[in-house]
């Protein structure tokens, strides 16, 4: 889709200004119901679009992403723009600098439509934890879009943006991509710089694209990947063009299917669709191999120890002193009153939402004296064990396939009173972040619920830094679906 739009722009069939205006008028009409966007940056977008149109007119070469409208999850900083992470504590916060991914996209000439809704600080699986609004699923407005990058997923699915950026700590790109019926890629830990992404769990966080096709995701990844001196954990990508690796040829590739991912918790219809997808891969020349990964069941408890622990440390910066709101527990400004401790306690009581408080307290507990060994250290050991399991498994297979989620998008409000039930939504996705590998969610079918055809997502996990392999697999699947 990106390449198609690019060609139209270069050939003069459409203009970037016209395209950008079209997207804004769609957003103005449709986002009232969908609530995908928190902030729109129309003036700046049109200004940048005019620049691209001028370049095209002057016959200058433009990048594939130039002049094409994109949505950005509101936990990624764009200099001079409001960035809230959907939290009240950052209600008045302006980003002082560009995230590395934004800096790169600006150089390419991408057009930023605005910032999309999320679960507060990316903590959640439904985008219901936003302090501002609840984003809906475009297929069925009574259902959630998934989360935490629900705004980005809904925007791309409803075509209120050509593509979008999200972040994935335990499934926050893949699960909403699955619920909304788009492609969502969580790159290898380190593939994309995290500089300028608000930290949630620093050893797990990764930025990645939402797109309509695997080729689009490849083009986007090429533009944002690479080593960055501002993120010591980032890895060199050697300027790889991922779109050049998607031939669609997957002959003799082995896909591992762990039986642990097809247990009782999995919806029957999704199970059938997943097996049909495997048949398609088989027809394309891939080999399917049943595998056992008995330790997979330990991934979710491990994740929910490590994440809150890192969260409790990362959330310490929201203290009402250096930035964000500074209020007492009646919501009144503490700027000229109160002492330091009161400022901390009140600002965080009022500014942070329930799930953020819950995770911060849980993490404080698991890291506190006397409990550290039993929880955090134990979880770090299991994490290493899981990594060793995956190293072994990847000696036998090239990719691992599973559904992205055990069920289709759930109803708004259905899980919001039960934190543990909400955590179980991530049962198939968190392991990927724990072991640091890349994974992609892509549409594999639909399930009919209450007269609506709800999207089902498949998940492919790949070896460390083999994003091109994943993208090629999904590209092959897409082509076979078109035939």
């Amino acid at each position, binding site marked *: 889709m990106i390449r198609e739009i690019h060609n139209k722009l270069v050939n003069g069939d459409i203009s970037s200004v016209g395209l950008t205006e079209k997207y804004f008028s769609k957003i103005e009409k449709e986002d009232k119901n969908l609530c995908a966007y928190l902030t729109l940056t129309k003036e700046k977008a049109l200004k940048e679009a005019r620049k691209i149109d001028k370049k095209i007119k002057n016959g200058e070469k433009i990048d594939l992403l130039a002049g094409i409208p994109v949505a950005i999850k509101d936990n990624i900083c764009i200099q001079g723009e409001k960035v809230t992470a959907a939290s009240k504590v950052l209600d008045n916060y302006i980003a002082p600098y560009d995230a590395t991914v934004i800096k790169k996209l600006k150089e390419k000439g991408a057009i930023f439509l605005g910032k999309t809704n999320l679960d507060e600080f990316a903590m959640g699986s439904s985008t219901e934890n936003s302090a501002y609004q609840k984003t809906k699923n475009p297929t069925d407005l009574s259902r959630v879009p998934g989360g935490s990058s629900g705004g980005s997923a809904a925007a791309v699915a409803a075509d209120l943006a050509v593509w979008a950026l999200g972040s994935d700590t335990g499934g926050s790109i893949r699960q909403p991509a699955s619920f909304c019926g788009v492609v969502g890629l969580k790159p290898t830990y380190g593939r994309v710089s995290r500089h300028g992404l608000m930290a949630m769990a620093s050893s797990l966080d990764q930025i990645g694209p939402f797109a309509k096709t695997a080729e689009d995701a490849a083009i986007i990844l090429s533009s944002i990947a690479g080593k960055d001196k501002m993120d010591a954990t980032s890895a060199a990508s050697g300027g790889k063009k991922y779109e050049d690796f998607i031939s669609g040829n997957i002959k003799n590739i082995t896909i591992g299917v762990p039986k642990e991912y097809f247990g009782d918790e999995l919806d029957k219809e999704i199970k059938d669709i997943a097996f049909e997808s495997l048949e398609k891969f088989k027809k394309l020349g891939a080999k399917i191999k049943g595998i056992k990964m008995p330790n997979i069941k330990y991934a979710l408890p491990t994740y929910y120890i490590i994440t809150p622990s890192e969260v409790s440390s990362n959330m310490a910066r929201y203290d009402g002193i*250096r930035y964000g709101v500074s209020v007492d527990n009646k919501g009144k400004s503490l*700027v000229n009153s109160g002492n330091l401790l009161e400022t901390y306690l009140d600002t965080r009581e009022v500014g*942070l939402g329930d799930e953020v408080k819950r995770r911060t307290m849980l993490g404080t507990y698991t890291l506190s004296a006397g409990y550290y060994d039993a929880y955090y250290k134990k979880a770090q050991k299991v994490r290493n064990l899981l990594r060793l399991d995956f190293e072994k498994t990847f000696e036998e297979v090239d990719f691992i396939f599973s559904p992205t989620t055990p069920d289709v998008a759930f109803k708004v409000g259905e899980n919001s009173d039960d934190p543990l039930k909400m955590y179980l939504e991530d049962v198939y996705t968190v392991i990927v972040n724990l072991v640091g590998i890349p994974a992609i969610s892509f549409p594999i079918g639909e399930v009919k619920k209450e007269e609506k055809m709800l999207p089902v997502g498949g998940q492919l996990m790949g070896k460390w830094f083999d994003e091109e392999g994943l993208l090629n697999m999904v590209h092959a699947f897409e082509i076979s679906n078109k035939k």
Partner: protein
Amino acid sequence: MIEEKEIKHIASLARIGIKKKELERYQKELSVVLNYFEKLGDLDTKKIKAKGYITGMRNIFREDSVNDCDEDVKEIIMKNAPQEKDGYFKVKSVF
């Protein structure tokens, strides 16, 4: 179940103000999740090393030098401060 006084203690460590009527809810919610963690007890990890970073990364060093940031960045940073004086953050008295 996790005790009330423990919730108070964690909240104070985490610098989160909580109301009395919330204590019971936090006791219940945190206990459910902590019980779920018990699952890991089944797994023998005596011979396994604890790892934080798993992509084979080693320590990465840089020069410990002061790098000034751009004026426009500085300006936004100070504008974001709830209380500022002469280009510094104003912090309330600790005692």
